[in-house]
């Protein structure tokens, strides 16, 4: 029994993977502020344990790649059936689990160096562990509901970490913006869940033929709604709303660049490698549902077509905006937006395996780039503006070498780098899509732009001369920070060979095939040639503009901005999405809230006050009536009454103490009388 457990992790024990970091988070929360080493040690140990368990789970999943091993249990009963949750082990879960735990582990180690001077060091590790736990829970969920629960907790952890330096107003605002923006998407997600629960009576993905991703349920959702859409299309698009929010897709991408206000390890872990990929993972997970309407001809739109369009727009837009940014982390942030667009595009054109392949390679090289950026920022005393850096190549050799590898992987430099192979897989899938060629063209255009902005970034930061004192004083960081860079750089190279066209092992396993059917390495070489030319074009243009004659001073004009000032200015202001939303959604909601507050005070409360005033007025009138009319004849009677009143007024001592006692006494007496009277 024990040996079996050692060799592979069975699905019943899958809960251990998120439970380990959760326990570390609890330890971090309960230790006093001074327990820095304990909090960090617990987090790293738990993550290492989770990594080992994930590897064991991968062994278990690869033993039977076609099977969806599940372990379901009831959460609570609704009367007609329980809301059930479950755990799921299949190659998709397992590959993602290994990636998330490995990248998290390296980032945790990096953080011990990066955050070592921070007063809230132990909270940081507590939040990081909480995040990792929620993310891993999301991966092992076999229920849309459990996935949603973890999805929300991931959002919470992200909120806490973006706002970690809450004393910076920008960080506090960014945290709130991220939470609210992603929650707008989550609203659609929640409605999709309600709809599925109502029509299917379950939210389990796989349940021996009864799950929502299995053929019986999908056939059930093929009927057309009054609006002409298939039910599965509508539900799929609602769930896609959640993915749009979480994965920073157009039009809800605005939170992701702002999230860079968090500490750099957070940007690397959450806003590059793992959390933002959760939307892509979700789409890959529910792919059977998204694709359920593909067989229907008489529908206005297929769910996947929408996904492909959103992905293509995001890929192109993110790359365009990245060209005009000056903050090192924001360039990488928009590059993340763009790369996530690629992944969505891949899912939309029907190749979710290519999307996951790119997700995995991207996680490594983007984590590498962010940690490299963090290394630069840490060395340069928190200078993030690439115009104010420069000349770091000789001073930070390890950082430069690893960053260059990451940059080439992201730009898709041929053959040696993982990003090339995964991007080729996506472009290949887009090429074969028979609905429209536009996603392919958008993807190819983004290839040029990606190579261009990454060349610019590297040239500005590492080449030329140091342009400020901060850059001048920079020096290489401690091994705790450089060691993760080296490991990630290795992965950024090697991982690509898991899915080359010659031996697409990863894709085959994800699809549940035990055998790998390779093609020629240069299959579809026409397209590959085009994209290699485009990469070369982007690299060449970048070098010609920024590398050949390095910027002399921080204030020197940008060569690209000098050529097309209006375009670059528009891109630098991120195409005005933030302003647009502030002017529309923001102003509308705050206006509406103010209007409601006005209603509250002047209409509803005013009506109450008016009624009260009316009552008072009628009382006044009656009293006057009494005084002038009825009372006149009773003067003598009143005289005697006045005397009695004087006696009574002594009782009116103004002592609330006494009043209360009399009241209580009277009340009890009254009760006794009523009860006795009733009993008689």
């Amino acid at each position, binding site marked *: 029994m024990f040996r079996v457990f050692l060799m592979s992790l069975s699905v019943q024990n899958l809960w251990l993977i998120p439970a380990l970091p959760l326990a570390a988070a609890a330890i971090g929360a309960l230790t006093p502020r001074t327990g820095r080493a304990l909090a960090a040690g617990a987090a790293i140990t738990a993550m290492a344990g989770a990594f080992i368990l994930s590897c064991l789970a991968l062994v278990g999943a690869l033993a039977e790649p076609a099977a969806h091993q599940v372990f379901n249990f009831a*959460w*609570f*009963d*609704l*009367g*007609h059936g329980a809301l059930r949750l479950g755990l799921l082990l299949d190659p998709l879960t397992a590959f993602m689990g290994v990636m998330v735990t490995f990248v998290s582990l390296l980032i945790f180690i990096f953080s011990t160096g990066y955050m070592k*001077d*921070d*007063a809230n060091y132990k909270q940081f590790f507590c939040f990081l562990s909480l995040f990792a736990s929620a993310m891993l829970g999301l991966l092992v969920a076999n229920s849309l509901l459990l996935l*949603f*629960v*973890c999805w*929300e*907790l991931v959002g*919470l952890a992200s*909120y806490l970490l973006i*706002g970690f*330096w*809450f*004393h*910076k107003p920008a960080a*506090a605002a960014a945290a*709130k913006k991220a*939470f*609210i923006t992603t*929650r*707008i998407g989550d*609203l659609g997600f*929640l*409605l999709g869940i*309600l*709809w599925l*629960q*109502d029509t299917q009576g379950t939210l389990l993905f796989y349940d021996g033929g009864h799950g929502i991703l299995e053929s019986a349920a999908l056939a059930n959702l093929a009927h057309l709604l009054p609006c002409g859409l298939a039910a599965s299309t509508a539900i799929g698009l609602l769930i896609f709303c959640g993915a749009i929010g979480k994965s920073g897709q157009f039009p809800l991408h605005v939170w992701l660049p702002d999230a860079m206000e968090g500490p750099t390890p957070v940007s690397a872990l959450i806003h590059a490698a793992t959390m933002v990929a959760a939307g892509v993972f979700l789409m890959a997970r529910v792919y059977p549902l998204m694709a359920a309407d593909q067989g229907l001809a008489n529908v206005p739109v297929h769910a996947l077509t929408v996904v492909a369009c959103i992905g293509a727009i995001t890929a192109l837009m993110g790359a365009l905006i990245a060209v005009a940014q000056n903050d090192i982390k924001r360039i990488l942030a928009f590059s993340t937006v763009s790369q996530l667009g690629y992944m969505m595009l891949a899912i939309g054109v029907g190749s979710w395996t290519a999307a996951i392949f790119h997700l995995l390679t991207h996680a490594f090289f983007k984590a590498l780039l962010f940690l490299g950026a963090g290394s630069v920022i840490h060395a340069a005393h*928190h200078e993030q503006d690439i115009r104010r850096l420069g000349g770091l190549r000789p001073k930070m050799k390890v950082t430069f070498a690893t960053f260059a590898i990451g940059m080439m992987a992201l730009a898709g430099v041929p053959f040696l780098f993982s990003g090339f192979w995964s991007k080729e897989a996506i472009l290949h899938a887009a090429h074969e899509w028979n609905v429209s060629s536009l996603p392919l063209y958008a993807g190819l255009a983004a290839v040029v732009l990606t190579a261009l902005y990454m060349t610019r970034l590297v040239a500005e930061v590492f080449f030329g001369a140091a342009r400020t004192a901060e850059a001048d004083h920079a020096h290489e960081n401690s091994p705790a920070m450089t060691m993760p860079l080296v490991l990630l750089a290795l992965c950024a190279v090697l991982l690509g060979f898991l899915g080359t066209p010659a031996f697409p092992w990863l894709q085959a396993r994800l699809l549940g095939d035990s055998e790998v059917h390779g093609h020629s390495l240069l299959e579809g070489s026409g397209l590959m040639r085009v994209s290699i030319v485009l990469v070369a074009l982007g690299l060449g243009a970048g070098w010609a503009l920024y590398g050949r004659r390095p910027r002399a001073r921080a204030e020197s004009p940008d060569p690209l901005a000098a050529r097309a000032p209006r375009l670059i200015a528009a891109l630098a202001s991120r195409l005005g999405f933030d302003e647009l939303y502030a002017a529309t959604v923001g102003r509308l*909601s*705050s206006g*509406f*809230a*103010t209007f*409601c*507050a006005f*209603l*509250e005070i002047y209409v*509803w*409360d005013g009506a*109450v006050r008016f009624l*009260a005033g009316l009552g008072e007025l009628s009382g006044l009138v009656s009293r006057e009536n009494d005084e002038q009319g009825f009372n006149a004849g009773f003067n003598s009677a009143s005289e005697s009454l006045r005397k009695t009143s004087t006696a009574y007024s002594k009782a009116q001592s103004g002592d*609330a*103490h006494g009043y*209360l*006692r009399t009241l*209580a006494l009277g*009340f*009890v007496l009254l009760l006794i009388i009523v*009860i006795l*009277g*009733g*009993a008689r």
Partner: protein
Amino acid sequence: MNALPCTIYVSFTGALLALAIGSRSAMAARVVALLTALTAWGITLSAASRFVPAAGLQELVNAPWIPDFGIRYHLAADGISLTLLVLTGLAATAGVLFSWNITERTGEFFALYLALIGGVYGVFLSADAFVLFVFYEIAIVPKYFLIAKWGSTNREYGAMKLVLYSFAGSALVLAGLLWAYAAGHATGFSFPELVAATGRLDLTQQTGILALVFLGFATLAGMFPLHTWAPTGHVAAPTAASMLLAGVVMKLGAYGCLRVAMPLSPAAFAVLQPYIAWLAIIGIIYAGLVALVQDDFKFVIGYSSVSHMGFVLLGLAAANSIAVSGAVLQMFSHGVIAGLLFAVVGRMVYERTHTRELAALRALPLHRLLPFAAVVFVLAGLASMGLPGFSGFPAELTILIGAWQTNPLWALAAATGVLIAAAFTLRVIAVAFFGNAGRAGPLGPPDFEDSAARPAVAPYPPITWPEKAGALLLLGATIYLGLSPDTLLNWIRPALQSPAFHAILSGGAP
């Protein structure tokens, strides 16, 4: 189970005892109050541990009271009452803990407080509409004095408004019940008798009766547009009274809607159902938006209560067993969460800083001065915005699943309330607790050199043990239910199978 009526008697006895002993020793009054609340809560918990869920009310006491009118002193309980009785015990105990620092007329305070609790227990145990009504009135009177005497901001106005609304609501209820009693020739005020009497009338009269009774109770549950008493009342009330008002008294209204009003006539309910649902939804969104622009910390919480009670009313209006069981769960959940929020704002923060203006609080580094309060408020805020792991999530999810069954549009509209809740909660968390960082640089330990430059901040008295105990009690409850909502749902669901509810829950849904 049979000991449940003792909760009423224990509370009233405790009230008299506190009154008698309070003039001599404030501490004795506190201890009496705490013991009384704990005893009553213990009774409910021991009943809960032995509770066998069943359809229909389980008899406790049934004796003639005013035979001429067929009125009987009739107490009974089922899973729904039990849920709310346990909530009352929990909220009452926590409320005593958060009132530990009351020094002014301590005896009277706790006497009125316990009298209010006794009335609330009575309402949840009544099986006769007249008895329910009497207990309901008993609960209203102490509220006035608690607010008017021990309250803060604008307390006379708040107290008067609250009491007038309460009496107006009960007047509607009474009018409706008397209408049914007289026109339907009822022989008593027991629930089945009133249902039978209403059934003898035509649909117009039935609708009129149901509208009066439902509206009357819904006033106390904070239904839009009859909700305006709630925020002002909550704000004016002393902490424990706000906790009870939001935590328990608003539930009296919702409970009355469910127990008394809805079963009266399934046909009439079907007529009124969409109106109630839309008023509930407007309440959710409207109160959330109003909370978004408040300047007073406590008003934000007050309006959030109205917004969350909208979910309860929506669950009732959806009238299927899922939605209604979710509504009862939400009653409990909101009782705990609102109690916690009011405790932080009213007791932990206001009584130390003496301000509730968000603008003033922004200037204070409260997360550093009162870290316990900050952590509790953040957790309570997360619970309030329906984050998984806390009781609000399963409750609101169940309501939405149920509402979708009746009308998907309702679920869609109400779900936006969850988004608004996140917006106003995050706003107050950020402004009130983290508005001023009190640190200079992005990195490094707190900059003490800089502290001389900042306005001097008086070190506040530390959070006391009763506050910690009360907060942990309520937090524990919301987290426990968030993970295991089945505990309560297993009591609630069988109760909805009783004939009284069965008619409405099957007939109400189209």
